[in-house]
């Protein structure tokens, strides 16, 4: 026990030292992110933020990310009960952020009014998808669709073309589709909701069962989906955020992307956790990401600016231009009509989320082998 006493003494001392140092600076010298946004995006963003902190406040910022799927990150934050080990939660569906705000686990976002007002309140028709919280508990940071990724070489061999959701049900694709489960991935969950709200509960599940019949693998994480498709292990991936698909292109793989009708468009919400260990760094991070520098940075990664003020544009041959070509020539979501049927009021309720997940588990996950045989 002696060891512990000593250790406790040292850790308390170190704790106070660090606290002492940081209060003298503009922002703390550490920053932790919990996020389902994959490494392809959060890594460069964190690096750029550290460089920015060095330039602006001369702070050697130590950043770290806990990469977790949205449901896991959400549950983890609940589990922390107001004593979070991360500062900022980034990504997923706005509805989960509303739930966290209701639980009193979020702090209001502090960014300049001008910056806040430049972000439109919502996007999409007939149902509008909110891009920021009117109560200011969260703010959208970038726009990206959850679409379909495919391996052109394999599809050609199979003689299949993919333009919209229904093309996924082609019997020739049997065993060729990769998807993550809705209870592990919010992109999958949101896309299940898009199908359910397009066709209604009964017909929607029928459709999703047919999709399961063609599914060769339910991956452990949503990021695995573009992964196995780009390697050629499976031909098609369901519900893949555009930046994940584009990251595979930047990694040197030959993959293509489809943005199907009414696909869910996520604003990748961001919020500061109440009781965050480094609140100043947290607020500074949000402001950085919404600034022109931040928006330019992410637009090189296959996502779109959150305001009409910026567009994806770069020198010929730049990653920005590659991204534009990859997603079919679009430069901003505010230039095109965005279709949306996803109703956050329906889909966001805790009861509904559990219903969808448990229906999936009982009727698809547990019976997958039988579904395939049919």
């Amino acid at each position, binding site marked *: 026990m002696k060891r512990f006493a000593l*250790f406790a003494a040292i*850790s308390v001392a170190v704790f106070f030292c660090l606290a002492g140092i940081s209060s003298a600076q503009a922002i703390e010298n550490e920053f932790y992110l919990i996020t389902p946004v994959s490494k392809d995006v959060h890594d460069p963003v964190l690096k750029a933020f550290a460089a920015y902190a060095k330039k602006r406040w001369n702070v050697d910022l130590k950043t770290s990310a806990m990469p977790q799927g949205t449901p896991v990150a959400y549950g983890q934050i609940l589990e922390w009960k107001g004593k979070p080990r991360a500062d900022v939660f980034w990504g997923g569906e706005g509805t989960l952020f509303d739930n966290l705000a209701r639980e009193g686990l979020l702090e209001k976002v502090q960014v300049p009014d001008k910056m806040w007002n430049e972000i439109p309140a919502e996007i999409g028709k007939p149902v509008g998808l909110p891009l920021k919280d009117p109560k200011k508990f969260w703010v959208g940071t970038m726009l990206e669709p959850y679409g379909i990724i495919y391996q052109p070489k394999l599809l050609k061999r199979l003689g299949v073309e993919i333009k919209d959701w229904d093309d996924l049900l082609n019997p020739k694709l049997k065993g060729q589709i990769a998807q993550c489960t809705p209870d592990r991935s919010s992109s999958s969950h949101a896309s299940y909701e898009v199908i359910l709200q397009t066709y209604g509960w009964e017909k929607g599940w029928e459709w999703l069962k047919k999709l399961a019949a063609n599914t060769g693998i339910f991956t*452990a994480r949503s990021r695995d989906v573009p992964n196995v498709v780009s390697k050629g*292990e499976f031909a098609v991936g369901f519900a893949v955020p555009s930046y*994940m698909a584009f990251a595979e292109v930047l*990694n040197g*793989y030959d993959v293509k992307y489809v943005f199907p009708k009414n696909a869910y468009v996520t604003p990748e919400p961001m919020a500061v956790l109440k009781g965050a260990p480094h609140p100043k760094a947290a607020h500074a991070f949000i402001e950085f990401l919404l600034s022109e520098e931040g928006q330019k940075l992410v637009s090189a990664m296959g996502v779109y600016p959150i305001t009409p003020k910026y567009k994806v544009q770069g020198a010929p041959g730049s990653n920005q231009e590659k991204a534009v070509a990859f997603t079919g020539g679009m430069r901003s979501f505010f230039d095109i009509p965005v279709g949306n049927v996803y109703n956050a009021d329906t889909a966001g309720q805790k009861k509904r989320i559990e219903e969808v997940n448990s229906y999936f588990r009982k009727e698809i996950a547990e019976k997958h082998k039988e579904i395939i045989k049919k």
Partner: protein
Amino acid sequence: MTLNVKTDKAGAANKPRIWPDVHAGGLVGYALLWAFFIVFLIYPLIRLFYDSFTTDEGIFTLANFHSFFTDAFYLRSLMNSMLLGVGTVITTSIIGIAVAFLLLRYDFPGRRLFSYLTIIPMIMPPLVGVMGFVFILGRAGTVNVILQDYCGFQQPVNFMYGIHGVLLVETLHLFPLMTLSIVDAMGKISPSLDEAAESVGSRGFRKFFDITFPLTTPGYVTGALLVFIWTFADFATPLVVGIDDLLASQAYLNIVQFVDRRLFKMGIVISAIMVILAILFLIIAKKYVSIKDYSSLSYTQIERKRLSPPLQAGAVAFLTFILVFAFIPYFGIALDSFGKGWALTPIPVKYTLQYFERVSVETPKFILNSLLYSAISVMICIAVGVPVAWAMLRTRLPGREVLDSLTTLILALPGTGIGIAYMRAFREPFPFMSIALIGLWVVIPIVLAVRRLPYTVRGTFASLLIVHRSFEEAAESVGATKMKTFRDVTLPLIWKGVLTGSLYSFILALQEASATLLLVVPGHEMMTVGIFNFYIGGSVNEAAALGFILIILGAACLFLINRLAGSKMGGVFG
């Protein structure tokens, strides 16, 4: 202050006495050992059971277990896990025993090289093995690409996706464990026993069942238990090939999702069931498995039969065949860590060093943390393990038998179970600490140390056995204290054994990724966690590069062990 409790019994001179000159310091040390076991092993396990038998409000209930045993999916997972475990024991037994016999009993060209190469497959960090196999044998792996592009196959052959893929990966990874256990056991059979048997007419198969089989059973059972538990606790491999109806996978998936409290609770319950099963297996195998039986007193020189040329060729062909398969993941990992954009071609088209740069130069924390934490854990292992072994052999302190059982129990505990037990146990801050242990990086070296402790205890125990008691008594008779005797006489004689055991612990600590994955603290990730995070973050190449570095480190340690252990572990095979 000296307690000097002497209860000299007649004839106790050769045996350790019940209370040999116990000093207060010694007793405090012994109490500290117990404190370590109680805090870091017993308490977390009790906490795990407590959580699985109560509701979130802390009321006793059996409902959690009821819902497990009435859920068809969980029961199927339990069944699959058992079948997979048994299946792997069977396949590794066939390969492992054949390899052990060939290397021990027969002489043929390249035997020494083979005896080194056949242990290598044990160095395979979780996830890396299955990744490597998928690169070569997956639906778009080298073999299938060749079959489709050049041999006219229309559909890829499914080598990997399914339970058979898991079996393949586990078998080729774990057979060396079986080989080592058998070699260890057979090394202890004295040739004189063989000769005695033959002189009374017991030959061939008869001799095998009369002598070899009964004497190798303890070693075999230990090996089988280790293989079984390893497979039973592995959740990474099945997930890569799309299998989630296994207990370990269900425990992991249910735990890492926090949304549904009911599922989270089930994750805890499943871990508790895994721990209970592990304890049950241990009790069944207890007759054969204990730290004492690991000890190899002395390896007798075994006479090897020279095989006839055709048989020699057969032996070489068999071993080469096994090794080619077992080395598939290494080829896959090497190709993918250097190759860029590798898809649907037999080997990568473009090569780069960028992934190595990213995981070593840009973010050196993975490698540094791995080395640091493993080193700390080995130090804890030595600080705890050497005294445990010494207390077991040289004292008659009460409770030392229990320490023996606890140490053996650790071997059987699934890593997922320990990880989840720690998560639950150390969530609240300690009485006089400001932060809970779970949020501190020290939890990683501690859990590593606990998990790898048996290897250090085993190594020390075996070495201590060889040090005759009379050496120490000689020193004591001329007035040396227990401490001084240990330092001047015992330690110089056993350090090699301790070091070998520690290096072994080090290799295994480097590769551990079931408990640590659940306990990792942000900013303090180690290599195995990095591999996992890179993999699920979609950066497979970086995961492969880290895996490649880890394999090289492991191989270097193994080589060192071989050198150090020299004749004793016989380059393992002598």
